[in-house]
């Protein structure tokens, strides 16, 4: 069983939903990433998504764009990133998901990249520009190695939800809003409807995680009560990292994580 799957069944047994946190690796440097990871683990994050920067992050809003640019400027490279993952693996058993863009895997070759990532300790992938139609080679490469987490959106047809859910392992990522990643205020009715429809289609075969624009404990609570199996928070963490001195990161991230995690228990 994959680490992610195990995590979901473990939470299930405790009547908890998953809190998934996203941070950008190497933003603004490796040391900060490690401190942030410690904070996330202490605060109770169930799964950690690590962003690997891409020069052209077209599904991301200003916060993650900026983090990508800085991470790249600071010299984040694939080999260095895998080293960082190994360090994180020594600290924690928390499932680690790598979020980046298709070209990063494509360039090295899906198989090679996925094998190396797996060896370093990565449990799954999220590629926002990988559509199901183009995913054959990627899926073959990941088979039996890592989970493949696909995204759906509130405008995805029922037929496609089924198809995409079938190709997804670990969890299915429901994009909450029409838009890019980023901190947004307010919860839309169409998102709540989409959560319900998606769960109806997936029939519990794969957990449904809701992300994009989720930033407060209140958001987490609302999505959990609407039926989400997991809630994903990203830009809000990056904002804390942006505004906190290095020696306070672990503690700040820890207490924010705790406040979010509280809302996943019911």
């Amino acid at each position, binding site marked *: 069983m994959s680490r992610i799957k195990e995590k979901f069944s473990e939470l299930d047994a405790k009547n908890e939903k998953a809190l998934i946190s996203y941070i950008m690796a190497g933003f603004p440097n490796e040391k900060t990433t490690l401190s942030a990871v410690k904070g996330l683990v202490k605060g109770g994050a169930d799964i950690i998504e690590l962003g690997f920067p891409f*020069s*052209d992050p077209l599904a991301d809003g*200003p916060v993650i764009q900026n983090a990508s640019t800085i991470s790249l400027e600071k010299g984040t490279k694939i080999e260095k990133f895998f080293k960082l993952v190994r360090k994180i693996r020594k600290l924690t058993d928390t499932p680690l998901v790598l979020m980046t*863009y298709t070209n990063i895997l*494509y360039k090295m070759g899906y198989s090679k990249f996925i094998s190396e990532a797996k060896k370093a300790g990565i449990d799954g992938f999220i590629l926002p520009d990988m559509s199901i139609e183009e995913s054959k080679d990627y899926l073959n490469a990941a088979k039996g190695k890592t989970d493949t987490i696909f995204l759906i959106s509130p405008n995805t047809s029922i037929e*496609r939800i089924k198809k995409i859910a079938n190709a997804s392992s670990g969890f299915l990522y429901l994009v909450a809003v029409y838009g890019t990643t980023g901190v947004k205020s307010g919860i839309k009715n169409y998102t709540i409807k989409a959560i319900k429809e998606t769960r109806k289609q997936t029939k519990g075969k794969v957990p449904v995680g809701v992300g994009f624009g989720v930033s407060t404990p209140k958001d987490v609570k609302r999505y959990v009560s609407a039926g989400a199996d997991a809630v994903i928070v990203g830009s809000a963490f990056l904002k804390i990292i942006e505004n906190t001195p290095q020696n306070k990161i672990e503690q700040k991230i820890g207490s924010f994580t705790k406040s979010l995690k509280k809302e996943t228990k019911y």
Partner: protein
Amino acid sequence: MKYPKSGRFGEFGGKYIPETLVPAVQELEENYLKFKNDKKFKKELDYYLKQYAGRPTPLYYAKNLSEKIGGAKIYLKREDLLHGGAHKINNTLGQALLAKKMNKKRIIAETGAGQHGVATAMACAALGMKAEVYMGYKDTIRQKLNVFRMNMLGSKVHPVKSGSKTLKDAINEAIRDWITNVENTYYLLGSAVGPHPYPVMVRDFQSVIGEEIKSQMKKLNNKTPDSVIACVGGGSNAIGTFYPLVDTNAEIIGVEAAGKGLKSGFHSATLSAGTKGVLHGMMTYLLQDKEGQITETHSISAGLDYPGVGPEHSYLKDQKRVKYHSATDTEVIDAFLLLTRTEGIIPALESAHAIAEAVKVARKHKKSESIVVTLSGRGDKDVEEVQNYLNKNVKD
């Protein structure tokens, strides 16, 4: 490769897009397939192309230039004479009309040099619509007259300050806008790039160039051209020129921007120096580093300053049907001045890349042979850039 249903030209192309855009791209494809053979749509587009944009454009025998070089006969396909001064209007009229049929109220576009932005703003004004145009911040400064033009035409320009602040970032930002406003927005993409069906659709709208060349050459010489040359940025004027002629015996050459030289690292010659990758929804040749990060490009012509290329060109390159060469900034300036002085035609710097190649090819060919060069745009927008270049190089 008539209409690639799979969205692929060989292994190239496809739809690497965020899921939110899938319904929009499907809707676009359905409507494009419906309207492309619709008599009324075709008639309406034809009307605008003729009466508004000025088609057909002449195929002009550049006698002075040909004689000066002393080789094959050079013919110029005068897309520079179109309304707006470039081939871009062929595509923007087609897509704007399609958007109107699709009842889309909001049009967005990206632009590099501003030529596609201006052509979008014109087509939208003519059809009673408004556009919002994303333009790299650097380009809004380099090409500020085009910013004024777009504003006057009733379109809004959004300067893009992310990434390298040029065309690729403008495309990123337009895609982000599209993701956010997907329900009412039409993305009017300016070259034969992006996810399927854009590369095919833009090629089809630009193919009027090659179709006219074919019939004009037949009238003039009763044969197809021996060589055909066009410059390649994203590749829309080139694919429009080449596509109707790939089944003939013509030698076909696309010309990329070699900037300061292919080995200098300062160029935009994607097909000559790139590797396969995925960007802006397509699998194609890209300028990227070993890890898949897209690298910055350089060209004296802003319109060729793009690290990707249309997927059909990648296919034609690998099939060896089309040769892709390149011209350096210096060669381009020489070609710009040569055409200006011999023929009294000021070419766009983009088009001057094709002229530079034509000069080389003409020298190697017999007088009885004919070369057609697509002059994709006029160079009024570039005279300041050229003058600056000349001043600088006199000083150096």
